C-alpha cells in the first residue's frame, strides 16, 4: 500500500526538457512544483566531463547514457497479424533516463516546423483535394498555428542559444537562410557554426544542382552565450561528441546548461530522482487527477497528491501512463475510435554515402553542424505529380567521426578481412554521407496499446507498438533519396551509394528517436487526447507535454517544436491556475 505524502501544487512526471521549462515558468508564477525523475541526477561536471565523455564504446555502443530496457521496455510488431515481441535491447530509437532527459544526449538540431505542417489536413485538401489523402491516413490539423507558436519558438531558441541563419524575418527573405521557413520575428541569437570541409562540399554541390542550401539551426553555441535567464554557455569546440553524449563544454543546450542553474535555486521547486511514476491517480469521478503514485529506488510505493499533474516523460511513457491509469478512451484500430495510443508516428530516414578524394577530417564536427536544403520538405513543392503526402529535408550533417559507428565504406567493399581493412584505410577521412529526414503520417494501423503478455519491473503491462512504413512514406523517402543522390553526384569526383529505406520497419538499426503521437493534440476530443493547450479533455488538471501530442510527424527534428509547445502550454497553465477548469469547452 502506497504511503501518502504531503500534497504539492504541481507534480511533473519526468525531469527533462519539458519539465524544466514548465517548472521554471510555474515557479515564476508562484506555485510549488515537484519533479519526479526515474533516472539519476546528472550534471556537466562530473557526469559529462571531458576527461571521460568522449568514449564511443561506453555511451554510443553500450548505450550507457540512455534508458535501460532491463526494467521497462515495449513490445513491437509491424502489424496486427503478428505477435508483438519485447524490444530486448535498444536499437531503432534511444529514449533517455536521468535528469535532463534526451535534452542531454540530443544533437542540438533545433528546427521550427513549417506553417503548413500545423494545418496539414486543411492545406492538403485545399491544394490537392480530399481524394489525395489515403483513406487509412489519420491526417489532422494541430489546433494551434505557426503564428501562435512563433513567440514560443523564439523563446526556446533564445533559451538554447541557437546558432543559425534566419531565412525569413518578418516576411522579408534573408539571403543565406532557409527561404522556405515561416516568418520569424527576429534572427537567431547566434551566428551559424563554422563550416567544415564536408558541409562546404555539400553547399557547393547543392547550389550547382539549383537548390538553396543554408546552415542548419544548431543548439550548439557558435559563440559564448548568455541566455535570458543569465545562464552561460561555452563556445562549441567541434569535438564531435554531441548525440548520444552529454556535452562537457557547456556548449550544447540542455536543461543543465540553460535552466537548471536558476531553477534549482528556487525555494518553490524540488525534484526527486530514481522515482518511477507508475500511475496517475484520479478521484472517483475520473474527471480529476489527485496526484501520482511512484516507486522509489528501494521499491517503496508512494502516493504524491497534487493539484495538477503534468506528464513530461518521453512520448512512449506518457502514453503508457495514460493507458495504465485508464485515463481517456484507448484507441481501437478496427473501428478507428478512441484516442489514447492513436496516431503513433515516426520519421523515415535514408542516406546517400559519398566517396571522393578530398580529406574531410570528419572527427571535427558538432551535433548540429550541417548544411541543408528544404526544397522537398512539407509542401514546399508540388506534390500533385508525386502522389504522396509529406516530405523532408536533405542535409549533410557532420556530427563527428567516431570510428566504430561513423565510418562509411563503398558498397562493394568486403565486409571483413584485408579488404575491409583497406577500405577503412582509404575512406575514413574522405567519405561523407548525405541524410534525408522525412515525415511520417499517422495511420489507422500505427498505434500504441498495452501488451497482453509481457510486464515491466513494476508489474505494469508493457506498451505495445504496432507500426510499419506505409507506401506513402516509402515513396516519399525514395523521392528524397534520389534528390540527395543528385546533390552527391554534383560533388567533384564523387561516387555515391544510395541507401534507400525499404520496408518493413525494423526496430533493430538506429534510425531516429523522433517517436511521436499516442496522446495527440487537436480541436476534437474524438480524435485527440489533449486540447490545443495540451490540457487533457477528460481530466482538466492533467497536461501532456512532448512529441506524444504531435498528430503526425513533420520532416524536421522535433525538439524545437516540443520546446515551443511547452512554452505555449505553460502560458495557458498560468491562465488555468488563476481559474482552474477546461480551457476549451466542447
Amino acid at each position, binding site marked *: 500500500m502506497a504511503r501518502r505524502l504531503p500534497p504539492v501544487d504541481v507534480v511533473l512526471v519526468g525531469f527533462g526538457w519539458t519539465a524544466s521549462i514548465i517548472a521554471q515558468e510555474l515557479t515564476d508564477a508562484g506555485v510549488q512544483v515537484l519533479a519526479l525523475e526515474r533516472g539519476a541526477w546528472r*550534471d*556537466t*561536471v*562530473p557526469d559529462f*566531463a*571531458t*576527461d571521460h565523455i568522449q568514449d564511443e564504446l561506453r555511451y554510443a555502443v553500450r548505450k550507457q547514457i540512455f534508458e535501460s530496457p532491463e526494467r521497462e521496455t515495449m513490445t513491437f510488431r509491424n502489424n496486427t497479424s503478428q505477435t508483438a515481441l519485447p524490444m530486448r535491447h535498444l536499437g531503432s530509437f534511444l529514449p533517455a533516463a536521468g535528469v535532463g532527459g534526451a535534452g542531454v544526449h540530443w544533437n542540438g538540431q533545433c528546427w521550427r516546423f513549417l506553417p503548413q505542417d500545423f494545418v496539414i489536413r486543411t492545406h492538403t485538401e485545399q491544394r490537392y483535394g480530399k481524394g489525395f489523402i489515403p483513406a487509412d491516413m489519420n491526417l489532422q490539423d494541430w489546433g494551434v498555428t505557426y503564428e501562435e507558436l512563433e513567440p514560443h519558438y523564439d523563446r526556446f531558441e533564445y533559451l538554447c542559444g541557437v546558432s543559425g541563419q534566419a531565412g525569413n524575418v518578418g516576411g522579408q527573405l534573408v539571403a543565406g537562410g532557409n527561404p522556405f521557413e515561416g516568418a520569424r520575428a527576429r534572427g537567431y541569437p547566434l551566428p551559424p557554426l563554422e563550416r567544415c570541409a564536408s558541409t562546404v562540399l555539400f553547399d557547393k554541390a547543392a547550389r550547382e544542382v539549383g537548390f538553396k542550401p543554408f546552415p542548419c539551426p544548431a543548439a550548439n553555441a557558435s559563440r*559564448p552565450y*548568455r541566455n535570458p*535567464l*543569465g*545562464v*552561460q*554557455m*561555452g*563556445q562549441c*569546440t567541434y*569535438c564531435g561528441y554531441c548525440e548520444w553524449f552529454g556535452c562537457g*563544454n*557547456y556548449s550544447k543546450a540542455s536543461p543543465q546548461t540553460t535552466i537548471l*542553474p*536558476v531553477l534549482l*535555486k528556487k525555494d518553490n521547486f524540488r525534484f526527486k530522482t530514481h522515482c518511477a511514476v507508475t500511475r496517475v491517480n484520479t478521484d472517483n469521478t475520473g474527471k480529476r487527477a489527485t496526484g501520482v503514485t511512484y516507486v522509489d529506488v528501494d521499491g517503496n510505493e508512494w502516493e504524491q497528491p497534487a493539484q495538477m499533474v503534468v506528464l513530461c516523460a518521453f512520448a512512449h511513457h506518457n502514453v503508457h501512463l495514460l493507458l495504465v491509469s485508464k485515463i481517456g478512451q484507448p484507441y481501437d484500430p478496427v473501428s478507428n475510435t478512441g484516442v489514447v495510443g492513436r496516431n503513433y508516428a515516426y520519421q523515415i530516414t535514408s542516406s546517400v554515402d559519398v566517396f571522393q578524394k578530398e580529406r574531410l577530417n570528419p572527427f571535427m564536427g558538432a551535433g548540429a553542424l550541417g548544411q541543408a536544403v528544404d526544397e522537398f520538405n512539407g509542401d514546399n513543392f508540388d506534390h500533385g505529380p508525386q502522389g504522396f503526402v509529406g516530405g523532408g529535408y536533405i542535409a549533410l550533417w557532420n556530427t563527428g567521426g567516431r570510428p566504430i559507428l561513423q565510418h562509411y565504406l563503398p558498397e562493394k567493399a568486403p565486409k571483413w578481412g584485408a579488404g575491409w581493412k583497406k577500405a577503412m584505410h582509404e575512406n575514413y577521412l574522405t567519405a561523407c554521407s548525405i541524410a534525408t529526414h522525412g515525415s511520417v503520417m499517422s495511420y489507422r494501423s500505427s498505434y500504441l496499446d498495452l501488451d497482453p503478455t509481457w510486464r515491466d519491473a513494476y508489474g505494469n503491462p508493457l506498451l505495445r507498438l504496432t507500426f510499419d512504413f506505409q507506401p506513402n512514406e516509402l515513396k516519399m523517402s525514395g523521392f528524397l533519396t534520389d534528390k540527395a543522390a543528385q546533390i552527391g553526384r554534383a560533388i567533384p569526383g564523387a561516387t555515391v551509394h544510395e541507401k534507400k529505406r525499404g520496408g518493413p520497419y525494423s526496430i533493430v538499426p538506429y534510425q531516429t528517436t523522433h517517436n511521436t503521437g499516442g496522446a495527440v493534440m487537436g480541436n476534437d476530443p474524438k480524435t485527440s487526447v489533449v486540447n490545443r493547450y495540451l490540457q487533457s479533455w477528460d481530466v482538466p488538471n492533467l497536461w501532456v507535454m512532448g512529441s506524444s501530442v504531435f498528430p503526425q510527424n513533420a520532416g524536421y527534428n522535433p525538439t524545437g517544436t516540443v520546446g515551443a509547445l511547452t512554452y505555449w502550454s505553460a502560458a495557458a497553465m498560468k491562465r488555468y491556475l488563476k481559474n482552474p477548469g477546461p480551457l476549451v469547452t466542447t
Partner: protein
Amino acid sequence: MSAARLFGFGCLLALLAVCAACSHDRDEAAPSTVKLGERMSPGPWGQISRGRYLVRAGDCAACHTAEGGAPFAGDRAIPTPFGTIYSSNITPDPDTGIGRWTDEDFYRAMHEGIDREGDHLYPAFPYPWYTRLSRDDVLAIKAYLDTLTPVRQAHRPDELPWPLDQRGVMAVWNGMYFDAGTFQPDPKRSPQWNRGAYLVKGLGHCGACHSDKNFAGATDKDDPLTGGFAENAFAPSLAGGTRDGLGSWPEQDIVQYLGTGRNGRTSAAGPMAEVVEDSTQYLSKPDLQAIAVYLKSLPARKDSAVASVDKDTLDRGAALYVDNCEGCHLKQGQGEPGAFPPLRQSSAVQAKSADTLINVILNGSRIPRTAAEPTGLAMQGFADHLDDAQIADLTTYIRNAWGNRGEAVDAGHVEDLRKSLRQSPGG
C-alpha cells in the same frame, strides 16, 4: 524585559557562572522573532538588516555552518596546521548556542576573543580582525543572529594536541601576537579608502588567508596581504605586484570579481569561490569599490627571482596541457572570455605557492554561483587521471608558459598535497 535589565541580568549570569539551571531571557517554545522588540535597541529592523549585511560581509556562515547542517549552527570542521577545530553554534539556542549571551558577552568575544564563560577562543575564530569592528556593527550582528531560529547543536570537542588544547595557552598567544583595538581611520586617506580598509582589515578578515602566517599561526599585525596558505590552498597576494598580485588589475576588475566570482582575468576557485558565493556577492557596490580602492593602495612586494625551468619538464608539461587543458583554456592559455578563465597572466597561477593551482587540477573547481552569474561553470578534477609527476610537470608548465613565471613544482609536493587533501575533513 528592558535592554538595560537584560544587560544586568546577563552580567549577573556571568558573575555566577551558572548556566543550565538558570532562568533565561527567552521562551524556548516561542519563535525567536517574538521577543525581538524587547531585545533590540531603537529601530530594530534597521539594525537587523544591517546586521544581516555585516554577517554576510564577515562570511560567518562559512565557518559556522557544517556541510548539510543548519545555518549558523556550527560544527564545521576547521582544519588548522595544529589540529581540527569545530566551529561553534551561533544561533540563539540557550544551551548550545548564544541564546544566553548578552551584547557585552558578544562584544567581548568579537573584540577580545574571550567567550561568555571567560575562556579564550582560538584565533581560527578571526577575532584578531574582528577586534577592529565598531561596537555598533558588532551589536548589529548580534541583533541579526538573535533573529535566527535556535538550533540545538552542541559544540564538538576540538582535536588539538596538548598543550594547545588548554585554552589558557591562548592568553600567551594573545600577549605575543594580538592587540585588541577598534579600527582607527587614517585622516590622511579618503573616507572611501578608510571604509575599504575597515572592511578588509576587519569584518572581511582577508588577511586570515591572504597574509603569511608564522609558526604560531599568527599573521603580521600590519596585515600585508602578500599571500598565505589556507585550507590546502594558497590565497594569492592582494598587494601591488603585477605578476602575482593585483598590480595590473583596475579597480573595476576587483569589484567585478568580488561581486560575481569572475572577471576577464580569472575566476574564483577553492575557498575563495565559497567566499564570493556566501559573502562578497552580497556587498554593496560602494563597499566593493571601497575595498578595491584600499587594495589598490597596497605596495608591491619585491618580486622575487624565479629559477628557470628545464626544457624537458616544460615539454612534458606542454604535452599534458595539450591533452588535458587546451580544449577549454586554449592554446595560449587565454581561456574563453565569458566561459573559461584564462591562465595566462593570472596572478593566482603565478602565485608564490602553486597549491591552489595544484588543488584545482586534482579536485576540479566550480566558478561561484552568484545572482549575477548563476551558471556555476565547473571543471573536473584530474586526480584519477594524472599521477604526481604529471601534475607537477603540468603545473610547472602552466606557471611558466605564455610569459607566466612561477617556481617549479616537484612530484613529492603534489603527493603531499594529495595526501593532505584526502585527509582533510572537507575533502
